[in-house]
């Protein structure tokens, strides 16, 4: 009887190992001089928009990029936490975060390198770190997305929607992304006990907490919910698709919540010069205009000269000029995270 040897499986393993190694050597080029390897970018922004911008950088500079996208709020760990855990052997050279507070957390842990380049120079103080550890660009605004066939898009209607039957109101899980920033703002304004009270009350009245802002948009567009909290880019997607919806900027204490993208260089990078070029590129006027003219309609934060913007972005830009300064909110963000985590602790 033939022996039950490992033949086919071993052969398969060898072939797969060769293919994998070949792909790795070809992509990461680990044997080459560090300067000629691709610059590693961790990108928490929507791949559909960010990849186009990053490929444009490759075209303009000839520097190849290796991009790792985020999957937070679906299943895995966020890029902020991955960078924290890789502190001994960082893989990432540049971090493009789609919000600010996570970047502030990395800064506090000493994981970012300062750089005050052209991009940093052109940004208002509110959207950059004083020492250059990070710089903001192209922002989103927190808005109410309202299904106009179900209710009218004004302050009093959404106020009533929250006050009465919250089961037709949707929001993303507050432990993640821009909803976490939103909660940090509320925590800062109202105090943690009041926010906790409000949160429990809304839950008690059936508020729909879903995995992400995209799903909030989908629920409101489908008419499953009448309104919800989301970001401008999601709302524009629905508007472009012709959905019967409207947006209403959320105001806390009379100010809007404007959440910038942030870019930072990771301490330990061997490619600091190239990383700086990418930071300057992302915080440049061209990139801000590109993002503003994309279907995400992100709001430019720096000076854009005489360039014209789409009308809807221009309107948002006016509202964004009177927004909450998020820089002091790291303690509030950490308090909210700790509360939400321990709420269900054993």
């Amino acid at each position: 009887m033939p022996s039950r040897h490992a033949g086919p499986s071993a052969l398969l393993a060898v072939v797969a190992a060769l293919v994998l190694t070949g792909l790795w050597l070809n992509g990461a080029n680990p044997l080459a001089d560090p300067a000629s390897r691709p610059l590693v970018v961790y990108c928490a922004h929507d791949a559909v928009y960010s990849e186009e911008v990053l490929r444009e950088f490759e075209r303009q500079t000839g520097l190849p990029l290796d991009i790792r996208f985020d999957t937070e709020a679906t299943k895995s760990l966020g890029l902020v936490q991955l960078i924290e855990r890789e502190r001994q052997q960082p893989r990432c050279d540049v971090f493009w975060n789609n919000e600010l507070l996570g970047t502030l957390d990395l800064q506090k842990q000493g994981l970012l390198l300062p750089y005050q380049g052209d991009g940093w120079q052109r940004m208002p103080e509110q959207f950059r770190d004083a020492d250059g550890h990070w710089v903001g660009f192209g922002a989103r605004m927190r808005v109410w997305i309202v299904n106009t066939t179900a209710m009218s898009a004004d302050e009093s209607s959404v106020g009533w929607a929250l006050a009465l039957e919250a089961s037709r109101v949707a929001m993303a899980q507050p432990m993640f992304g821009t909803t976490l920033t939103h909660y940090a703002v509320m925590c800062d304004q109202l105090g943690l006990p009041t926010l906790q009270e409000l949160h429990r009350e809304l839950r008690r009245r059936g508020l729909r907490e879903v995995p992400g802002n995209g799903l909030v948009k989908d629920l409101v567009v489908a008419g499953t919910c009448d309104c919800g909290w989301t970001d401008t880019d999601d709302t524009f997607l629905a508007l472009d698709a012709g959905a019967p919806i409207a947006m209403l900027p959320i105001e806390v204490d009379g100010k809007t919540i404007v959440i910038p993208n942030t870019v930072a260089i990771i301490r330990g990078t061997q490619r600091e010069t190239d990383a700086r070029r990418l930071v300057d590129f992302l915080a440049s006027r061209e990139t801000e205009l590109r993002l503003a003219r994309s279907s995400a309609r992100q709001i430019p934060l720096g000076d854009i000269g005489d360039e014209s913007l789409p009308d809807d972005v221009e309107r948002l830009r006016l509202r964004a000029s009177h927004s909450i300064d998020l820089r002091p909110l790291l303690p509030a963000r950490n308090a909210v995270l700790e509360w939400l985590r321990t709420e269900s602790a054993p």
Partner: protein
Amino acid sequence: MTFAAALGWSDIRNLAIALEDRLRAVSFAAALEWSGLRAVLITVIAFPICVAVAKWLQRDDGPRRRWRWVAVLGPFLFPELLVGYAYAPQYAGRPGPAEAACAALMLLRVVPVGVVAWLLTPTSMVTPSALYCRRLSLRTWRDRVDWLRLWFAGPVTSAIPTLSLLWIVSFQQFELAALIRAVSWSDWLFVQQVGGLSLAASLQAAIGPVVGQFVVLMLGIAAVAQSADDAPAVITPVHQSQVTRALIVAYLVEQWVIVIGWPTVSLAAGLPAGLQQLVTQPLRMQGLARELFAGLAAAVLAASVAWLIARSVGSAVRTATSDGSVRTADPTVSSDRILPRWRSGLGQLLLCLPGLFGSLLLGLALVAAFQTPMLRVLYNTPVPWVLGLILYLLPRAVLLRAWVDPRRPRTAEFLAAQLMTSSDPQQQRHGRRLWWRLVEEPRFFAVAGLTYWGYLDLTTAYLLSPTGLTSGVVRLYNFMHFGRTAALSAEAAVLLLGPLAIAAAVWPLVQKGRA
């Protein structure tokens, strides 16, 4: 409505609200208990369905049997992340309905696993007629105890492997629960990680569920080892009434509509736009092909290695439980020889423990391990990714191996092997063909199944793959997070149909070459 009725309705409503409120923020203990209980419920409901469907598959050995297999296995092979994505808008954020939907979807998805397990489990050494005969002669209490012993050794032992696998697969549930926002211990740990729970605390919390799974896994493997190995080589036609057959077909249709139909329809809407976008981006298509091959190569490598390691684990366990030493308590075998065998078997089985922690904790532990000075040099290489996948797949590989590799050579295999050594070239050819059908083909499908699991695992790819090499599944999750249905549809189609196309192309060559 009377006042009393109104009051009763109000009480029920308040109770439902209170229950839903509790489901939104459960403790780890509650999440664990509920996950375990839900897995038990699913197992109990799924088991009779599995047996009935397995009998339906065995009705005859005609050409239609292959299509019946496709009908049964399809819902399990359809990616869970797409099922969760399709149903999230209806159920996420509504704790009660989300729990019901999650349990129902899990039930529909685990039935194919149970069917395969039931068909692979060797037939019991105690035949139904033996059991019946023993029952006819029950006189004393000792007879009744003896009959009970036979019942445990027969039908119960045959059912345990299937029940174990159904429970483990339901209990390990992560993606579906996370996407629909149902309660599960695995999702609880993920959320705590985001909130800042340390790795050490997470691993400590996971010890309980891991030990539970390990015990159930051991039970399943031991039961397979206890069953008779000489399963009938010829499939005996099984009688089923027309009503039962109609019910099974209705069940399968429902399973296809819910698990495959609706998710496909909801994604297909965005497919034309997504494909249109994709064909205008040659760089993206190139990247997608690269991601497909990288994910597939890592999964094939990990599955093959896990399969090889499982062979060693399996033989150690078989040696430990071999007839002479344990089951018959042969007086000539001293306890000095039995104990080391057991230690060796158990020691090798402990290799399965890391995989039972789930891919998230396993991935985080490997990130921490490869950040230490000794292993740091390997961190940004494919080694951590492949190692993570191997450890993740190992428990499944051990269980599959227990089914596929019998304790003793089966008669049919022995005869096929004899044919292969014949001096007549035609008989040799027949022998090789038979050997392929009896031995190699089940192994091929087992490794293919492991590859499929590894290919679709997001967490190991996301956390452990080196720069310049990642799996396309990571991007699918990015699209899901941002609600990019068009891009998701197009790339999901490429990433899921790609491996199938490769398998379809390779399969005839493999068959021809081996046979």
